[in-house]
Structures are given as structure tokens and as C-alpha cells.
């Protein structure tokens, strides 16, 4: 029987508006704590490359590109077959404008996993930006055969490559496909404006232009809203929470469940909206039968995603385990209403109703 711990403390942090030095100090402390946490994983798991990849990603998210690159290099010395590491390094190289290096690094990704979706599209994008259109077209076509995950984007890339090689008729079709797949794809609409103009179809160009302007305005409004609502401290907390959650996942994957729990709890403290770390915590508590520990976490998950019937059902079953039958019935009822066709919710609800009848 697992022991019951005191009530959980994974509540949202109190909101205090910090500015100037106080803000810098708070953010610095959060970053340091996050980096310390992942460095502890590196020390705890010296035989694994996972912590090295994790710490690189944490540095990258905090903008420490040089440190990220150093950790990735260390990671590759331990395990030279990590596509995620080459992919991260390639993205940094691209951001630095080192296109040849980016292509080389993505080449390593494909060496390790030739069928990894998305990589050919990344390389094609860089090749288009370098003016190597024929090679780019071949890669995009391969990508399209490989996966439909980025079909709209790949069609956009094809359109762009043909547009640049002034094959306007060939460019038209993939651009049209891109906007069919993703009607809000402003870049593809702009490609169509250009292509229709070049093909001497002013009416079609005008229609595409109107659509471009419409979807671009929506994008711009969203972007402006995002900029207006930028919150440095909240964003740092989120990044720090990701670092702690990553540390937790790495510990858990190697069986260090207590250490994992501590990291996930810290992640939940830092990011009141992080469902992933709460899901991990809830699983951990339920699997170890620490139901009263699980309860506040499951309640938070429901409050984060109140329309999720599965979370409602899980909470209901947890209430049942804690002998809160009325609460349990209420949650299961909601889950059933949200997803009436789900037989499992129906069965569980009926079971709880039966239990309630027997109690009377």
C-alpha cells in the first residue's frame, strides 16, 4: 500500500507584477533553477544521451544558442545517431544564415532516419533560399510521397520553386492545392496573385489578392494581439516548466519515479496551464494508489480542459475511489453527455449508479 502524502501544492503561483531589477532577478532565478535541474539529470544519468539533448534544448529555449550547440556536440559524442540533435543544430545553422551547414546537418538526420517526415521540406526550403530550385523540387516531391503531414506547406514550396524558375503554369497547380488544403494560407494566396498576374489572368489575380488581403489581416490581428499580450515572466515560467517537465520525463524513463515526481510538481507550480506535467503526475499518483494526491491534480486538469470527457470520467472514478459518490456520478454524467456514444462512460456511470443504489 502506497503511503498518502500531505495535500498537493501544485497551485498556480500568486501573480505579482515585477519590473526592472526585480523582474530580471526573478527571471534569472527561474532560468538558473531550470538549468540546475537539467544539469542534475545530466549528472544523475551519465550513461544516457537524453539528458544532454534535454539540456541543449533548454539552453536553446532561453536563447543560449552557443551553449545549446556545445551540449548537442557532447550529446552526439555519446550517441551519434540522434536525429533530434542534428535537427536542432540544423535549425540554429539556418537561423544564422549558414545554409550549407544546415543542409549538411539535415543530411545527417536523413542518414539516421531516411523516412523522417518534414526534413526534406526543411532542406528544400533552404535550397530554394539558395537558388537551388531543381534539387528543392525533387526533395519536396519525395516529401509529399513520404507523408501527408505537411502537404499544404510542401505544395507551397513547390509553387515557390516553380515561380522562381518562372514556370508559372507549373507553379499554379501546387499553389492552388495549398490553398485548398489550407484556405487561410496567406503565403500561398500571395503566390497565386503573382502567378495569375504572370499568366495574364487579371481577374483571377484580383480574386486571389482579395483573399490574400483578407487572410493576411486575420494573421496580422492575431500577431498584434500576441505582441500586446507578451508576458516575459509568464513565458519564462512556461519555459522553466518545460525544462522541469523534461527532466521529470527523463528520470521517469529510467525508473527514477520520485525524482520525476519532484520535477513534474515543480513544472506544475511554475505553469498553471501545463496539462502535460499534470497528466504525468496524475498517472504517477493513480498508479501508486496515492488517490488524495491525485485528486487536486485531476481537478486542475479538468479545470484546464473542462470539455474533455475523458478527464471528467477519470475524475469521476477518482471520486469514487475516495468514496465521494455524488461527485463521481456528476462527473460521469457530464462525460456521458459530452460523448453519449462512448460505451465505457455509459458502463462506468451505470456501475456508479448501482453502487449508489446499494449504499441506500
Amino acid at each position, binding site marked *: 500500500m502506497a503511503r498518502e502524502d500531505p495535500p498537493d501544492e501544485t497551485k498556480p503561483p500568486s501573480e505579482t507584477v515585477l519590473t526592472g531589477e526585480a523582474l530580471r532577478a526573478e527571471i534569472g532565478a527561474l532560468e538558473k533553477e531550470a538549468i540546475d535541474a537539467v544539469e542534475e539529470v545530466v549528472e544523475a544519468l551519465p550513461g544516457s544521451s537524453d539528458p544532454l539533448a534535454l539540456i541543449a534544448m533548454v539552453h536553446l529555449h532561453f536563447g543560449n544558442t552557443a551553449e545549446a550547440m556545445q551540449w548537442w556536440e557532447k550529446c552526439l559524442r555519446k550517441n551519434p545517431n540522434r536525429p533530434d540533435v542534428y535537427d536542432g543544430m540544423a535549425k540554429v545553422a539556418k537561423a544564422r544564415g549558414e545554409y550549407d551547414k544546415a543542409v549538411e546537418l539535415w543530411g545527417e538526420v536523413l542518414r539516421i532516419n531516411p523516412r523522417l517526415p518534414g526534413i526534406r521540406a526543411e532542406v528544400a526550403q533552404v535550397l530554394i533560399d539558395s537558388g537551388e530550385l531543381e534539387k528543392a523540387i525533387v526533395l519536396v516531391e519525395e516529401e509529399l510521397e513520404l507523408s501527408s503531414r505537411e502537404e499544404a506547406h510542401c505544395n507551397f514550396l513547390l509553387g515557390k520553386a516553380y515561380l522562381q524558375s518562372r514556370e508559372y503554369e507549373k507553379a499554379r497547380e501546387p499553389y492552388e492545392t495549398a490553398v485548398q488544403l489550407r484556405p487561410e494560407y496567406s503565403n500561398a494566396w500571395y503566390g497565386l496573385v503573382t502567378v495569375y498576374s504572370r499568366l495574364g489572368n487579371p481577374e483571377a489575380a484580383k480574386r486571389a*489578392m482579395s483573399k490574400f488581403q483578407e487572410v493576411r489581416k486575420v494573421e496580422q490581428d492575431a500577431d498584434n494581439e500576441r505582441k500586446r499580450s507578451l508576458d516575459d515572466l509568464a513565458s519564462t515560467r512556461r519555459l522553466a516548466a518545460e525544462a522541469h517537465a523534461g527532466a521529470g520525463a527523463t528520470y521517469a524513463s529510467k525508473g527514477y519515479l520520485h525524482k520525476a515526481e519532484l520535477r513534474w510538481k515543480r513544472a506544475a507550480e511554475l505553469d498553471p496551464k501545463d496539462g502535460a506535467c499534470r497528466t504525468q503526475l496524475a498517472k504517477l499518483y493513480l498508479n501508486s494508489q496515492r488517490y488524495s494526491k491525485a485528486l487536486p491534480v485531476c481537478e486542475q486538469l479538468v479545470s484546464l480542459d473542462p470539455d474533455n470527457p475523458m478527464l471528467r470520467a477519470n475524475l469521476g472514478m477518482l471520486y469514487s475511489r475516495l468514496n465521494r459518490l455524488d461527485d463521481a456520478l456528476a462527473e460521469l454524467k457530464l462525460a456521458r453527455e459530452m460523448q453519449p456514444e462512448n460505451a465505457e462512460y455509459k458502463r462506468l456511470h451505470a456501475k456508479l449508479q448501482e453502487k449508489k443504489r446499494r449504499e441506500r
Partner: protein
Amino acid sequence: MNARANSHTRQLAITGIIAVLVVLWGSSAAMAEFPIQLRDVTKQSGISFKHTDGSSGEHYIVEYVSAGLALFDYDGDGDEDIYFLNGAPLRGTKTDTPPKNALYRNDGDCKFTDVTEQAGVGDTGHGLGVAVGDYDNDGHLDLYLNNFGPNVLYRNNADGTFTDVTAKAGVGNGRKVGAGANFLDIDADGNLDLFVSNYVVFSYDKRPVHTKRGLAMYASPTEFKSHPDTLYRNNGDGTFTDVSLESGVGNTPGPGMGTVCADFDNDRDTDIFVGNDLSANYLFVNDGKGNFSEMGLLSGTAYDINGHSHGSMGAACGDYDNDGKLDLYVTSYQREVATMYKNSGDGLFEDVTRLIGAGKGTHRHVTWGNGLVDFDNDGDCDIFVACGHLDDNVEHIDGTTAYFAKNLLLMNDGKGKFTDVSDRCGDGMQVKLSSRGAGFDDLDNDGDVDVVILNSRREPTILRNDSKTGNHWLQIRLQGTKTNRDGVGARVKVVAGDLTQIDEVHSGHGYQSHFGMRLHFGLGKREKVDRVEVHWIGGGVDVLKNVAVDRVITIKEGEHAKTTQ
């Protein structure tokens, strides 16, 4: 150690020294072999100007956009003088002596003397953009400053001094945040009108404030409203009338930055291009009478090939592929590439940046001052790009870029493709500062184009072109008689054997700067120019034949009228 051993040691030492010398000589020879060499001569130039952006840590958006510069011959002595804009102390900044703009007289051989006080052009406003033009057609170049706050028009008194005539002329433009400015003759009446680009609507008290990693950052221009641009028509009597609305340029607000005015549709009038910051660029197309239609989106110059609006900064134009049409080159923000819009000649432009390599090296940096300049006199335009981030703390939040950056030089291969040769062009290209405006002209009158760069919060950089190519050249000054005095807007065509080039006289160019009223044509090994044509704005055509090379010529309107040839 015996004598033989000593001898052997000496021999080894001598061999070593020779080896070192060979290596040094070899590298120096290799350096010298590269056709473009720009030397940093700032220290010996006599220029002590230091730019300030007025900042006190508040990160007002009007800080980082400062400033442009002007290269022009203020005293009419045949060489180009330098005018640097400066920032003013913004709210919260304390200073004993307010910084001011500075005029440096060219004394020849890239030596300059500060004549700001004598000339009376030490404006203390927050300088952003500048244009030069002879608005009163008296043969002396006047100076317009586009500030944050009231703008200034300095009339050249023809005696080395200037008078502030802003109020009389009526071109103060309110208390806006300025950007590029240009003199141009919108209606071909022989008087230079004035285009004034405006940036964002800024207020100290109502402005977005952001931090990243706890560090203060500049807000985005998209978080501010924008003013429309302003157009003043020259009344011909020393005054101007605001015709923004009726001309069509005042109907479209946008955060203007670099501007350039040229005949983009080859219809013999002057159009206006405005690079907008994170917003669609504008191309105001002139009907020849001073009525403008905004054709950015239709022409393909509003966005890049992806339909993205860039953080457009500098606007340069030139005929990079010598096809007789002026192309546009626009610098931009980090993770965008400076963009070459090739003029297709049918009212359309094509983003050919990636095809021709015109954006090489720019992706990592914020890019500002720019010019399409023939540095090696081989008859095609190379590209110069001034670089430097706007956030001085950017390395703390983004390790892929840097506040201080080397500038870029992309060499044209003669077939319209560019190679990044920055690291091979001498010590002048190794300077790492945060550059803004840049100007290009032959400062030492030796037949090649030199560079002046304004660096944010620092001393400027003067790059002397020491390229030893043996190529020939021709420089042309225009003198209007019926049309505007300096031929602003006039198109010049130079034919030398198999090489035909065009250019125009522009007032206001690049990143909120002014340069290049004396047109420069590299000619390669061609030893004579067969034909020079000048198409004056609102005037006729002058044609000169069999022009000798390696000299500066002045073409006076009407003296070589086409009908007499």
C-alpha cells in the same frame, strides 16, 4: 654548441624568416589581387562626430531608427561634403551639451573639417532622415531634415552658411516621427517638390513596453498607429503647399522608413517607393502631373516572394542587370533577407533575391543603409549593406545574431549574380559596429566610389576605395536650366561599346540618407564612351557623343540638345 651547429641554427632561422615573409607577401599579394579594396580611413579623416540615439534605457522606438547621413557638395567646390544626423536627448536622458548634427567640409584626400557652426546647420532635433536638393533653383544645394519633432529646411545662402527657412517654406510637418525624405519634381514644372515619409505615431506616455529575459526590448512598429506620408508641392516662391491628400500619397498610413524616388515604370516621370517597417511597402506611381496611385501590391514590391511584409529599412535603386530598368533593393530585419525586386518593365517587379544571391549574408542581421554601387568600375552594380541589430542586448536573448556586425559587400559577376566578398575587400569591411545610414560617392575624386557609414551611438566609418583595377570610369553632373537645377529625376544613359548603363539623379536614397547626385559609371577596359543621353524631367534630351573617360563632366541642359546632334 659548435660552430657548425650554430651555422645550421642560423640557417634554419633565416629559412624560417624567409618562409614567414613568403607567407606574408603571399597573403598580401592575394589581398591586393582582389579587385575591391575598401580601407578604413576614419581615424585620419579628421572627423570627430559621434552619434547618439538619445537613449536612456527606456527603449523608445524612435531611438534605434536614428539616423541617416548626406553626402553633398554644400560649398560648390567640386567635392562631396558630409552631413551627419544626430539624435536628441529623449525623455529621461540628461546631457550638459545637447548633441547636434554635424557638417564636415571635404578638404580633399579624405580629410574633413567640422564646419557645423560656421554653416549654421547644427540642428539639435532628433534626426532620422535627410534629403538634399536645390528647392529654389539658385545653384546651391539646400538641406531638409526629417526629425522626430519639427522638421527643418535649411536654405543654402551660397556663402558657406545656411538659414532655417522651415516656417516660411511651410514644411515643418508637425511633430511626427520622421523617416526618409526626398526632393523630386512631381509635376515636371521645374521646381523640386518634397516627399516626407513618416514612421509611427509615438507618445512617451502611451507606448508598449516589453522585456525579454527581463531585459528591456524595443516594441514592434506594428504596435503603433502610423501617419500617412506627406507630400509638399513647391509653389516656386520659396513656399510649399501640403498636397498629401489630393496627390494620393496621404491616404495610406504606414510606418515609412527608407524611401527612393525614381522612374520605375519608364514613363519619364518620378515615382515614389516607400519601404514600410513590417507592413506592405508602397509604390506610388506618378501620372506625370503629380497624382499618385499606390501600386505596391499590384507591382509586386509590397511583399517578398512569400507574401511577407519585411521590416523594410533602406531603399536603394539601380539597374543591377543593365537591362535599362531601375531595380529596387530593400534591406530588412533579421531572419528576413534583403530583397532585390527586379523591374520587369511591365509595371511588375519580381523578387529575384534567391536566384541571384542578392540577399547573401543578410539573413542573420538587421540591415540598414544600402547602395547599388560599382566599386570596381567594371560596369555593373555591386551591393553594399550596412548591418547591426537594434537591440544592444540582443545576444542575451538570441545567440544567432549580434548588435555589432560587419557590413556586407556583394560583388556582381557581370551576369547579374552576386557573391559575398565582404571578407576579401580590405580592413574597411572588418569594422564591427551597429551601422545605420550609409552614403556612397567619390570623396577623394580619384574615380572610384568611397563609403561613409553612420554607426549608432558611435563614430562613423569612412571607407576609402583603394581598388586598383585599372578600369575606366565617367562621372556626370547635371545642370538643369529649364528643369530643376541639379537634374533630380533626370535619367542618364551611357553607352560604351557593348556596355549600356542607366542611372538617375536621386535626392534621398538608401536608409534615410542622401548621396550620389554626381552619377558614376564604371566602364571596365572601355576607353571611350560612345554616347551619353540625358532625359530631363519635364525637359528635352541632351546627347553627347565620343566622350573621353576617367573624368567628371558637367552636362548643362540644352547645350547638347538632341535636335542639334
